[in-house]
C-alpha cells in the first residue's frame, strides 16, 4: 500500500494541468463556474479539444481510440478537470452506448458509429425511461413491430437528457409482449430525424431545459439498427448500467464544489467574522470533508479492483449512494454560504452584461441545489441501489 502518487502519476497530473491551462477555453470555464449556460456548441467545442488530444474516451480500449487509463489516471483527470471548471463529458455516446456496441454490436455498427461518437458527428441520447417505467424499467411499453426490413416504433420515452440536441437515440423497445417482461425487450438505434419522432421539452424546477419527452408515432427503423439479438436488449441494458455507474461517485466534482464553498465562506461575513470561522458552519464543512476524504479512497479502491478485471458490482451501488449524498450535501452548504444571495433566480443574477449579484458563484447555488436532487433519482435511484446492496449481501 502506498497512498502517495508515484513519479509517473505526478508527471501525468502536471501534464493534465498544463493541458487544461492551455486548452480549456476561458469563456467555457467561466460558464461552468456559474456565469451562464453551456450551449451545444460549447460542449461540442470542448469534446473536440479533448478528442484532438486523444483524451476524450478514458474508458475505451486503445484499439478504438481510447486512453486505456488506469484507475489512478482517471481519478487524476477527473479531479483536475473539475478544479479547472471543465464541462463534464456528455456520457450518452461515449460512456453508455459505446461499451455496448463494442461488446454486442456487429462489425459494421462498430466501424460506423464508434468513430462518429469520438468525432462528435452524432450526438446521442438515452431512451430508457417512460412515464410508467422508471425504477421498474422492464415494464416499458414502447412497441417495435417488425415489418419487412423495418421495425415500426410507437410509444413515448421521457426524461431524455439533452434530447433536444441529439441526432440519435438508443432505445429499449418491446418486441415481444407475450413473454416475461425482461425477455421481450430489444435495443434499437433510432435516427431522430426519422418522420414520426417528436421531441417536447420538460422544464426542470430550476428553470433549466435539460430533459425532454420523445414521442414515436409509426417511426420506421431499419432492422440493421438492432443491436445484438432481438429480445436480448435487457442484457445489454444491464451491461450499460454498470458502465453508467463508473465515475458515479463524483469525487472530483465534490472536491471542486467544496473548494468553492470554502472560498465563499471565506469572504462572506457573519456577525462581523468570516463565515468560515463560524463554528456551526465550520462543523458542517468539516463533516462533509471528512466523508469526502474517505470517499476519494473508497472510489480509488473500488475502481482499481474493477480495472484488473473484477467488475464493480455491489460496490458501484455503494459509490452511487454515498457519492450522491456527499454531492448533495455540498450543494446544501453552498446555498447556506450564499445567505440571502441564494434567493435570486440564476439567469437574472449571473447573465447579461451586468456584474453578477452577490458573492462570486452565489448566483447559481440554489439552482444547483435543486437540480442536483436528480443525482439520487436517476441512474437507478438510491432506493434501488440500496435494494441491490441488500439483495447481494443478504440474498433474497
Amino acid at each position, binding site marked *: 500500500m502506498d497512498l502517495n502518487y508515484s513519479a509517473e502519476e505526478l508527471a501525468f497530473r502536471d501534464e493534465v494541468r498544463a493541458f487544461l491551462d492551455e486548452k480549456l477555453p476561458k469563456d467555457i470555464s467561466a460558464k461552468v463556474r456559474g456565469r451562464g449556460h453551456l450551449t451545444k456548441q460549447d460542449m461540442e467545442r470542448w469534446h473536440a479539444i479533448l478528442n484532438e488530444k486523444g483524451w476524450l474516451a478514458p474508458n475505451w480500449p486503445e484499439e478504438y481510440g481510447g486512453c486505456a487509463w488506469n484507475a489512478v489516471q482517471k481519478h487524476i483527470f477527473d479531479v483536475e478537470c473539475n478544479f479547472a471548471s471543465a464541462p463534464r463529458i456528455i456520457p450518452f455516446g461515449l460512456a453508455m452506448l459505446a461499451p455496448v456496441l463494442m461488446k454486442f454490436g456487429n462489425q459494421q455498427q462498430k466501424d460506423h458509429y464508434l468513430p462518429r461518437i469520438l468525432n462528435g458527428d452524432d450526438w446521442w441520447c438515452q431512451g430508457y*425511461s417512460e412515464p410508467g417505467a*422508471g*425504477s*421498474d424499467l422492464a*415494464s416499458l411499453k414502447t412497441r417495435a413491430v417488425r415489418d419487412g426490413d423495418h421495425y415500426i416504433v410507437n410509444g413515448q420515452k*421521457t*426524461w431524455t437528457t439533452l434530447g433536444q440536441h441529439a441526432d440519435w437515440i438508443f432505445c429499449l423497445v418491446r418486441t415481444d409482449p407475450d413473454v416475461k417482461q425482461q425477455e421481450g425487450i430489444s435495443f434499437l438505434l433510432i435516427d431522430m430525424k426519422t418522420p414520426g419522432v417528436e421531441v417536447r421539452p*420538460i*422544464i*426542470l*424546477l*430550476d*428553470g433549466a431545459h435539460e430533459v425532454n419527452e420523445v414521442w414515436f408515432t409509426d417511426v420506421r427503423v431499419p432492422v440493421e439498427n438492432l443491436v445484438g439479438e432481438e429480445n436480448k436488449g435487457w442484457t445489454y441494458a444491464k451491461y450499460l448500467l454498470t458502465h453508467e455507474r463508473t465515475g458515479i461517485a463524483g469525487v472530483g466534482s465534490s472536491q471542486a464544489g467544496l473548494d468553492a464553498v470554502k472560498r465563499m465562506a471565506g469572504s*462572506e*461575513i*457573519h*456577525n*462581523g467574522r468570516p*463565515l468560515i470561522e*463560524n463554528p*456551526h*458552519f465550520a462543523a*458542517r464543512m468539516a463533516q462533509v470533508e471528512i466523508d469526502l476524504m474517505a470517499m476519494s479512497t473508497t472510489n480509488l479502491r473500488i475502481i482499481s479492483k474493477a480495472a484488473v478485471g473484477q467488475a464493480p458490482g455491489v460496490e458501484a451501488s455503494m459509490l452511487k449512494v454515498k457519492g450522491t449524498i456527499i454531492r*448533495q450535501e455540498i450543494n*446544501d452548504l453552498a*446555498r*447556506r454560504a*450564499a*445567505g*440571502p*444571495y*441564494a*434567493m*435570486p*433566480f*440564476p439567469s*437574472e*443574477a449571473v447573465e447579461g452584461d*451586468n456584474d453578477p*449579484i*452577490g458573492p462570486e458563484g452565489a448566483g447559481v447555488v*440554489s*439552482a444547483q*441545489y*435543486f437540480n442536483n*436532487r*436528480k443525482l*439520487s*433519482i*436517476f441512474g437507478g*435511484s*438510491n*432506493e434501488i441501489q*440500496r*435494494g441491490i446492496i441488500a439483495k447481494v449481501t443478504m440474498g433474497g
Partner: protein
Amino acid sequence: MNFDLTEERQMLQDTLRRYLADKYDTATRNAILDSDAGMSAEIWTGLAELGVIGALFSEADGGFGGAGFDIAVVFEELGRAGVVEPLMDTAILGGGLIAALGDEDQKLLVEEIIGGGLHVAFAHGEPSSRYDLRRVETTVAADGDNVVLNGRKAVVANAEAAGQLIVSARESGAAGDADGISLFLVPADTKGFTMRGYAMMAGGRAAEVTLDNVSVPASARLGAAGEALPAIETAVVSANVALAAETMGAMESATALTKEYLMTRKQFGRPIGTFQALAHRMSDLLIELEQARSAVINAAGHLETEPRIRDMQIASARNLMGRAGRLVAEEAIQMHGGIAMTQEYELAHIAKRITMADHRFGDTDYHLERFIALSAA
C-alpha cells in the same frame, strides 16, 4: 390550555383556503411566476377584499387582528397554496413598521395598505450584512430641512412594486452597533434610487437598490433618530412567525402530495408506498409535520411576551422549521422520483418555497446560535 382556533380565526382560515383553492391553482400560479410583475394584481385585490391584509393589523392600527395566531393562520394558508404575493413584505414588515413608528400622517399609509392600494418594501439588508439586523452601513446626512441617504441595499423583496420604501440608514456609530439606526419612508420615485430587479428562485421579485444622494425631508424619518432597532427587531419577529407558518403550510402540501403519490404511483406492479423503504420515511415526514405545527403554535403564542422568551421561541421555531423543512422538501422530491423535478408539478414550487424561506431573516444555523445565546443569557 386550548388548542382550538377562535371562531373568527376559523372563519378566516376557511374563507382563505376556499378562495385560494378556487383562484390559485398550479397553472394560475405558474403563470404568475412567469409574468413580468411576478405577482397578480387581481389576487392582491382579492386578498385585500377578503380582509386578509386587515387580519394582519390590530384594531388600533385599523385592522381586526394582528396577533401571532392571526399571522399564523393567514400564512399557513398562503404556504399551503404556494402564494408568492408579498404579504410579508408589504403588510407585516412595511405596514408593521409604519404602524409602530409612524406619526399621524405616516400612519395614513396603513389604511392604504389594508385596502390593497399600496405596496411597501423594507430596504434594510445590505451586501455584507447577511442576516445581521444591526449591520447598517448606509449613511444619512442632514442637509437643511432634508436628509441625504447614500448606500446599497441587498435582495430587497418587492422593491419594484413598492410605492414606498422603508430604508434603514446609520446616523451614528459603527456598522454593527445597536444604536444609531434610523428608518426613512422614501417614495419610490425619489431621485437617486437605482434598482436592479430580478425574479427569485421561489417566486416573487427583489432588487439590488443603490441610493445615490437620495434626498428626502427630515420628516420622512420614522420614529426617533437612531432608535429604530427595537422596532425593526419586533417587525422581524412577526415576519419570522409568518415565515414559520408559511413553511409549515407548505410542508402540509408537500406531505399530502407525497402521501397521495405513494398510494397511486405503481412500479413493480404495486403502489410504491407499499415498499417499506418509503413507507417509514413517509411516516417520518408526518411526525416532523406535527412537530412543525407545534413549533409554529409556540412561536405565534409568544409574540406578545417579554423579548427574551419571545425571541427564544422564535429562534427555536425557525431552527426546527429549517431542519424539518429541509427533510420534507428533499424527501418529498426523492420519493416522487423524476416527476417532482419538473417545474410544472406543484411539489416543485412548494419545495422551493420551503427551502428558500431558510434564506430570509436567518437560516437554520443562525437561529440555532440565537437560541444558544438567548438560553445562556
